């Protein structure tokens, strides 16, 4: 039996089971959360391509599964990424019942995770673009649950991912068949431009981010956070695989300059729009852009530790965004109105701390990795350092302003807006956020495994 086939069967069964249970409030979330966690751990740690004995039964799990002539391979290169996605799924499914993100959240989420796992494991990996497009379709089902209003932003996501798919597929052909190297400058430039178009969409680089804030204040924040995390993380893994696989691309100074420029643009744009926002759900979309920008600065910095920092940031972003989403989803019952913090103090505090963590403020999960980047950036990257510090301070100011707005005295008193499950979920994530802020080494085993799959980018 092959491991990818086993995962495919498991996900199919889970999708059917959770569709059958979709009217229950707790069971589908618990089932998907536990199963997704087990699949994640299996992907990360199961011994593949070697004989093992399970309860006395001899067993050999193959890492590859051929379908229509193309293998899906769970190579060491892919295992950290695929495992990460399923662990993200486990976290979001497990806590999702507390904020009721909609009936399509669990089955749609499982389909999206399965497709993204396909994207990371398909050989040659350039065909991943089609799986990413299909995953974007599943994400539309998550964002717009049955009965919710259809939003143009969700359709924009499909339009953008279709364009990214075409750009990456065409680039894939150029890379595989035409033999692009550094000694074919015209073709190399064409590849860089086409790939650039694909990746700016996958990594939400402005102006291709517009689907995100346009629906941020209309859909459930929890669903949006899940979709943003899984799509953006897959885009980041995909980018790193490209850089790892093609030496000429790593060596081309235009590539690293473009990545750094995109990162800088995201930090400046995300920060400036975030501080001027009048909508609380939208602010997170822009702070997220600034955070992704920091990851791109790390990737494009040329530092030997840069990729490791980008991976670390990708990992802790899940915690920060989940905390914001849990808080924000509970706060939505208050309409994010003035004094909402007095009605729902835990949720509001959770949402605000989640933003601070996304911005990389001290004591939160996002800080240690940013600090590592700031510490390692050289004299030549002083501008990037200044941008990062400016972003942190500006977002801190914006969060303080929102804190004053939500906790302003003389407004409404506390009522039963906060349910105990959501309060518990917020407390759990806040604890995780602080824990990773104080002990960032807790995330390093996963980062080390992810880096083992990227031998050419490894320090």
């Amino acid at each position, binding site marked *: 039996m092959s491991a990818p086939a086993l995962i495919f069967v498991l996900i199919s069964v889970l999708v059917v089971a959770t569709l059958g249970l979709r009217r229950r409030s707790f069971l589908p979330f618990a089932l998907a959360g536990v199963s997704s966690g087990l699949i994640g751990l299996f992907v990360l740690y199961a011994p593949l391509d070697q004989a093992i004995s399970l309860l006395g039964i001899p067993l050999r799990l193959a890492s590859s599964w051929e379908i*229509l*002539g193309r293998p899906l391979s769970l190579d060491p290169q892919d295992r950290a990424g695929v495992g990460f996605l399923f662990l993200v799924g486990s976290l979001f499914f497990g806590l999702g019942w507390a904020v009721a993100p909609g009936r399509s959240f669990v089955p749609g989420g499982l389909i999206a995770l399965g497709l993204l796992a396909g994207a990371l494991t398909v050989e040659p990996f350039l065909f991943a673009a089609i799986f990413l497009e299909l995953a974007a379709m599943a994400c539309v089902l998550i964002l717009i649950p049955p009965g919710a209003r259809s939003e143009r932003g969700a359709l924009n996501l499909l339009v953008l991912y279709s364009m990214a798919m*075409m750009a990456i597929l*065409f680039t894939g*052909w150029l890379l595989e068949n035409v033999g692009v190297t550094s000694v074919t400058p015209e073709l190399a430039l064409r590849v860089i431009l086409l790939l650039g178009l694909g990746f700016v969409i996958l990594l939400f680089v402005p102006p291709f981010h517009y689907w995100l804030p346009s629906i941020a204040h209309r859909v459930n924040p929890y669903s949006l956070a899940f979709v943003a995390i899984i799509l953006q993380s897959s885009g980041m893994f995909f980018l790193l695989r490209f850089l790892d696989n093609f030496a000429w691309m790593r060596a081309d100074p235009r590539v690293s300059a473009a990545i750094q420029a995109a990162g800088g643009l995201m930090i400046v744009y995300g920060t400036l729009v975030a501080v001027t926002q009048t909508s609380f759900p939208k602010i997170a979309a822009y702070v997220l852009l600034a955070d992704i920008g920091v990851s791109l600065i790390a990737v494009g910095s040329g530092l030997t530790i840069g990729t490791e920092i980008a991976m670390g940031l990708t990992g802790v972003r899940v915690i920060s965004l989940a905390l914001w989403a849990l808080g924000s989803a509970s706060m939505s019952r208050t309409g994010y109105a003035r004094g909402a913090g007095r009605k729902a103090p835990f949720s509001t505090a959770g949402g605000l701390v989640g933003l601070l963590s996304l911005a990389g403020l001290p004591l939160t999960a996002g800080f240690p990795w940013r600090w590592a980047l700031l510490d390692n950036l050289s004299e030549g990257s002083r501008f990037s350092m200044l941008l990062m510090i400016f972003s942190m301070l500006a977002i801190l100011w914006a969060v303080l302003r929102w804190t004053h707005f939500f906790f302003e005295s003389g407004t409404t008193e506390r009522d039963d807006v906060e349910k105990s499950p959501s309060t518990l979920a917020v407390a759990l994530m806040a604890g995780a956020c602080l824990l990773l802020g104080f002990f960032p080494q807790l995330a390093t085993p996963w980062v080390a495994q992810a880096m083992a799959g990227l031998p050419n980018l490894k320090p």
Partner: protein
Amino acid sequence: MNWIPLLLVAATATALVVVERPGIQIGILAIQYSSVAWLTSLALPPQVAAVKLVAGLIACGILALTVAKSRPAAESASGIAGRAFRAIAGILIMAAALGIGQSNWMRVPDIRPEAIMAAAILMSMGLLQLGLFRNPLRVSIGIITLLSGFEIAYSVIEPALAILALLASVHIGLAIVVSYLSLEAEPPDVVEGSE
């Protein structure tokens, strides 16, 4: 003979911009899929190119069922002026596409001139539809038109069955998503100014 699907592609892509009734749009889309399959068969064996036709017709079937089941949408207020505007925009874009399609603009080796011209027309008209419309059905038809143009050229350079099947699943997936948005979700509250 190969100019027949090219003419059909040009006619259907323009008609999809102008025609407003969803049922007729889906009929036109089915003709467009047939033309695309014909053009694809210039590079692939006909039985393989038929995969595109079958997938396209399945997508059209899903869309047709959706249109039949969904609540009748409020009449768009575009009128003759709106249709005339879209027709003129379509003609202008078509002229640009005919100019681009004269040469092998995608630099795909061994591609027939009819195929590269059809790719230019479909991709241009698909982009026009995406720019003009906000309604899920019309946006999905725009994406399908855009993808069909790309696939005519891509099938020349990547004839693998797996890719063909995956791309076919994208078309069916799009139809399912639009069906879901039309039947399960509430209609958007945005006024279709451009339609």
